[in-house]
């Protein structure tokens, strides 16, 4: 904790404190709509951190993180709607469930030396397989979805994750902040250095005595578990779950956008990416409403174009560039 703090340059410390203070004070000035946008920003920053751990640090491309998100969401909401077990207990069931799924995917993939594109396709296959499975799972409502009742006893209590936007705002903020701290810590830990070695050169890492299978599995375990927590948040925030939405490949892609745009393998990349992307999408919606354009798809077209432009011009992400501009990186400038 303290060593991460000390590593920051002075203006970085000031910026961090200002932003934290702004985030905590935001509900004082923000209206309901702005608050809902900020909730999404933190939510995507959090999920981006989880995914970035696996791809950015350990170098394993997963395009199926919707699997862990959906499993987390379904586990916790099913426990609540079917057995009345609250999310604070449910989350500790959701994490192992998603982590176990991650273990299966990772074990099958890496044991049999499935790498790169092939591994990415394996993760998609598992997510799609599970989506269709849940589409036919009667106990969770199959494709008709599962809904969280708003008037069952205790559902409006904060400890059951029911309440106004303030609750979700601070919850999402705490999740994002905690994930960023965790990732910053892991990045500087021996495990973090092992991940980077595996990412940069698996052969050399093996030669240096690193158990690369174990390193990748740990990354998957943490990443899937963290994503499941995001899923629990998703379930209780939106209060409805459909397999075709939660497990969809679009969901997986949504998760990975922020870290890629912000900067893969950096601690602040996912946060910067989420801060840039989410309001971009939202302001587009607002802009289109303002001009009376109500065409589905127009927003997504702009979204797709933005992705293409950013990946063409700034492939390593916005954060490394921004950090250099702001003088926040520790590297000596030429």
């Amino acid at each position: 904790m303290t060593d991460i703090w000390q590593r920051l340059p002075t203006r970085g410390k000031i910026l961090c404190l200002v932003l934290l203070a702004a985030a905590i004070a935001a509900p004082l000035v923000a209206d309901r709509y702005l608050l809902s946008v900020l909730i999404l920003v933190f939510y995507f920053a959090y999920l981006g951190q989880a995914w970035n751990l696996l791809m950015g640090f350990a170098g394993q491309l997963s395009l199926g993180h919707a699997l862990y998100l959906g499993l987390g969401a379904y586990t916790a909401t099913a426990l609540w709607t079917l057995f009345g077990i609250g999310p604070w207990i449910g989350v500790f069931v959701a994490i192992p469930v998603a982590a176990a799924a991650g273990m299966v995917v990772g074990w099958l993939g890496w044991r049999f030396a499935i790498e790169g594109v092939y591994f990415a396709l394996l993760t998609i296959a598992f997510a799609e397989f599970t989506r269709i499975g849940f589409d036919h799972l009667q106990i969770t409502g199959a494709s008709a979805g599962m809904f969280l009742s708003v008037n069952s006893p205790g559902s409006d209590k904060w400890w059951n994750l029911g309440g106004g936007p303030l609750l979700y705002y601070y919850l999402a903020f705490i999740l994002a902040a905690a994930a960023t701290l965790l990732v910053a810590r892991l990045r500087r830990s021996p495990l973090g250095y092992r991940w980077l070695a595996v990412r940069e050169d698996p052969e050399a890492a093996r030669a240096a005595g690193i158990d690369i299978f174990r390193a990748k599995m740990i990354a998957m375990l943490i990443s899937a578990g963290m994503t499941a927590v995001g899923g629990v948040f998703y379930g209780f925030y939106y209060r409805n779950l459909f397999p075709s939405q939660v497990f969809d490949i679009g969901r997986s892609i949504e998760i990975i956008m922020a870290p890629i745009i912000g900067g893969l393998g950096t601690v602040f990349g996912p946060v910067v990416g989420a801060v840039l992307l989410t309001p971009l999408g939202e302001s587009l919606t607002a802009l289109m409403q303002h001009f009376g354009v109500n065409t589905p798809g127009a927003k997504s077209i702009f979204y797709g174009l933005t992705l293409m432009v950013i990946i063409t011009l700034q492939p390593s992400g916005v954060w490394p560039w921004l950090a250099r501009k702001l003088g926040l990186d520790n590297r000596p400038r030429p």
Partner: protein
Amino acid sequence: MTAITLNIIVQGILTGLVYGLMALGLSVIFGVMRVVNFAHGEFTVVAMYAAFLLFDMLGVSPLLSLLPIAAAFFFLGYVLQRALVEPFISRAEHEQFILLVGLATVVVNGLLLIFGPDAHPINLPYSFDSYTIGPMFIDKVRVFAALGALAICVALFLFFRYTRTGTAIRACADNLTGAGVVGLNVKQLYAVTFGLGFACIGAAGTLMATIADASPGLAPAYTLLAFVIVIIGGLGSMAGALVGGVLIGISEALAGFYIQPSMKSMFSFALLIIVLVLRPQGLMGRRL
């Protein structure tokens, strides 16, 4: 019982050949350029709409518009590669992925914007005719589509085997440095390869339009379908794409009939997982 099963298997094989042609495009592009076209299904659906429009507005049968659409898609692919994909050839996989996912998003939502979410069927005069062979009834359109797909696959195979350009492209796939050393214009050949992959998409989409209704919602499903097929058959193997297509066609037809139509792709993904684990290079692929 057995006659019904046989009937379903034959229908599955016929549909599978069209799937195979679509997947062949993906396989050719990956086999030569090591780029996975994540916008594959999206462009297949574009071709379906092209076939629909030509039929709906000009009354051109898809079997006639097959070659013109394939040719148009060749140029589309050529231009796309030159303008968009070329700078990404030597970049990291996830960067190529983002570029093509961005492109796929633009294409599928463009279709949604222009045509709306509804399905557009092509009703040919013989749409509901079938051939009777013994106890089996085989859809006429499916037979035509499968024959068309097979013909284009054979043509492509002959092109790669016997023409100078085809041989040169195979040289690029085998040994890129060597191909450059002997003076092949690799950039040009890559663009031709991408064009050929897109010609497969154009042809497959046109044929697909006769057996399925065009709608934007099909696009992501087709992309995944093409992935599943080439992984099962072996990424980069031409014969593998056809074999994988037929296998998936049969598995979809059987699961759709005996279990539930909505669960048919679950079996395809299960098949994919099994193949990836037991034989990750695919049924006909070279050892990884």
